[in-house]
């Protein structure tokens, strides 16, 4: 590719030929000075390279995805696919023959398709999208869910502490989390992992077992839970190319599932394996769905988006504990407001010997570990 463009254009077969007879000055014959007899054309150069390197010349990641040779028909089909969705929505909503319900459904789909980033929405817009999602669910399933969009409260910064001498490895937290947050049952997605570590060998996450099945606590082992640490300096937020994930005022790192493009950069950037990807459409049996939802929390996700622990935003912003904290029978999990000098989490940070994982990375997790 000889042209030095900063932007990307679809490579339809016909356009490429253009360059052979012209140059950057725009004239098609003689005079601009950039042509000389012994300069080879792009095509000649390409064939020469192919002849020497041949199949070894591989395209890099970006080109593999975007520089795909496709015939005109496929290209147009792909381009118009999303337009058709919109057009379909318009035609249904304008048609006299379709029912009221499908018209409303189409109207909702249309508005949801073109809504903005949640981070930039006003409170009225947030309420709008929440109402649409609730109505859409009602139209599709006949069931009513309760969804909210509470914002971060002033003077609140959420923090978490985990007592590694109390955890017995029962994994009740994992089950509670899955039920609370409507995680995909097919892929058995779980935000929390409990690592079974050998006593006296330090934290060796590569040797620890996070999927044990025997009586616990096992002799000579201790247990340590990891999940999203809601870093105050989150690397996952830095790398998101579309700003679909961000840190809220109360410290929660959240995702707008409708804005996420599924590139999984955040998954690669997270040093704690805190993020999960929906490789397939998440499925939860209707009667198991937790209908108390938050836009940024446990509402139903779709295929191809990221999700993770939100410290149960649907609960914590109402004053409740995350589901894992309430489910833990040993009291190993402590949650609270870091800005309240009288909170129990503050007492733990000030009076126990606390540490965080990979502190030297500067990610500033708001998740501390401590011992009795």
């Amino acid at each position, binding site marked *: 590719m000889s042209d030095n463009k900063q932007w990307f254009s679809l490579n339809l077969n016909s356009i490429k030929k253009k360059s052979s007879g012209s140059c950057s000055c725009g004239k098609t014959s003689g005079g601009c000075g950039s042509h000389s007899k012994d300069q080879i054309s792009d095509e000649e150069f390409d064939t020469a390279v192919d002849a020497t390197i041949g199949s070894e010349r591989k395209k890099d990641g970006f080109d593999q995805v975007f520089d795909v040779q496709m015939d005109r028909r496929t290209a147009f089909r792909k381009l118009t696919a999303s337009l058709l969705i919109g057009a379909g929505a318009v035609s249904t909503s304008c048609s006299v023959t379709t029912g009221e319900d499908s018209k409303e459904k189409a109207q909702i789909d249309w508005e949801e398709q073109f809504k903005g980033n949640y981070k930039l929405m006003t409170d009225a817009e947030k309420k709008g999208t929440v109402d649409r999602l609730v109505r859409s669910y009602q139209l599709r399933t006949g069931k009513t869910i309760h969804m909210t969009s509470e914002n971060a409260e002033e003077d609140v910064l959420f923090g978490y502490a985990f007592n590694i001498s109390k955890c017995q490895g029962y994994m009740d937290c994992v089950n509670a989390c899955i039920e609370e947050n409507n995680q995909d049952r097919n892929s058995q997605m779980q935000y929390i992992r409990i690592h079974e570590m050998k006593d006296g060998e330090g934290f060796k996450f590569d040797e620890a077992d996070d999927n044990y099945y025997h009586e616990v606590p096992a002799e000579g082992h201790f247990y340590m839970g990891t999940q999203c640490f809601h870093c105050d300096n989150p690397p996952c937020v830095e790398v998101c190319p579309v700003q679909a994930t961000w840190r809220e005022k109360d410290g929660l790192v959240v995702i707008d599932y409708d804005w996420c493009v599924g590139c999984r950069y955040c998954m690669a950037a997270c040093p704690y394996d805190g993020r999960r990807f929906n490789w397939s459409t998440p499925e939860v049996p209707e009667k198991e769905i937790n209908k108390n939802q938050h836009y940024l929390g446990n509402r139903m996700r779709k295929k191809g988006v990221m999700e993770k622990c939100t410290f149960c935003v649907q609960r914590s912003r109402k004053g409740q504990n995350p589901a894992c904290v309430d489910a833990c029978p040993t009291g190993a999990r402590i949650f609270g*407001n870091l800005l309240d000098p009288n909170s129990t989490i503050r007492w733990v940070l000030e009076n126990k010997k606390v540490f965080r994982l990979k502190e030297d990375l500067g990610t500033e997790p708001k998740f501390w570990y401590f011992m*009795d």
Partner: protein
Amino acid sequence: MNYRITYISGYLLLFMLLFVSCKHNGEEYHSLTDKIKHKSQNYHKTQISSEKYLEDKELIKITEGEHTFLIPERKGKIKSYACIECHSKPLDQMQNSAEYKKAHWDIKLVHATKDMMDCMTCHNGNNMNKLTSLTGKEIDFNRSYKLCSQCHTSQFDDWKGGAHGKKIVGWAPPRASMTCVNCHNPHNPSFKKRWPARFNTQVVKERKDELE
């Protein structure tokens, strides 16, 4: 002339730096602990409260040291309270009487050793409605943590501060914490071995596929 300009501009620069460098640069903090410390200086109550979750719960307010918080009421939860409905006489008289019956046969004491503890270490033989301290003082069933704290002092300190034990409903004030006997059976207080609540078969499959 040239010197003068250099001096003046030098002083000006220093003067400006004095103001610029000392200013807190908005959200920028050296560390998270600095941020927490600074932001909590002017902390005044949040709007969020857990009062509505506590409404239907019977709680009592306790003050221990500098900590004041709520714990669940206990006496109403004990199935056969009040104890004096059966234990109408002091215990030594009942044991020696003709109608002696073995009571509480289902309770087996698995707490410390037999040399160290028996029923009477905690229960008050003269007034079965009360517990007893090591020095023979009466302790109310609602404040049974006072009994436990005689031996388990470090756990008591952690519990008061909030590092040991669970909250009843939420993180938001007012603080309502569970008391010792809400998680530990006083006659058999340790946590037991059991199977984990979950086993992820998908993870097993994925890891096996990765190896192949």
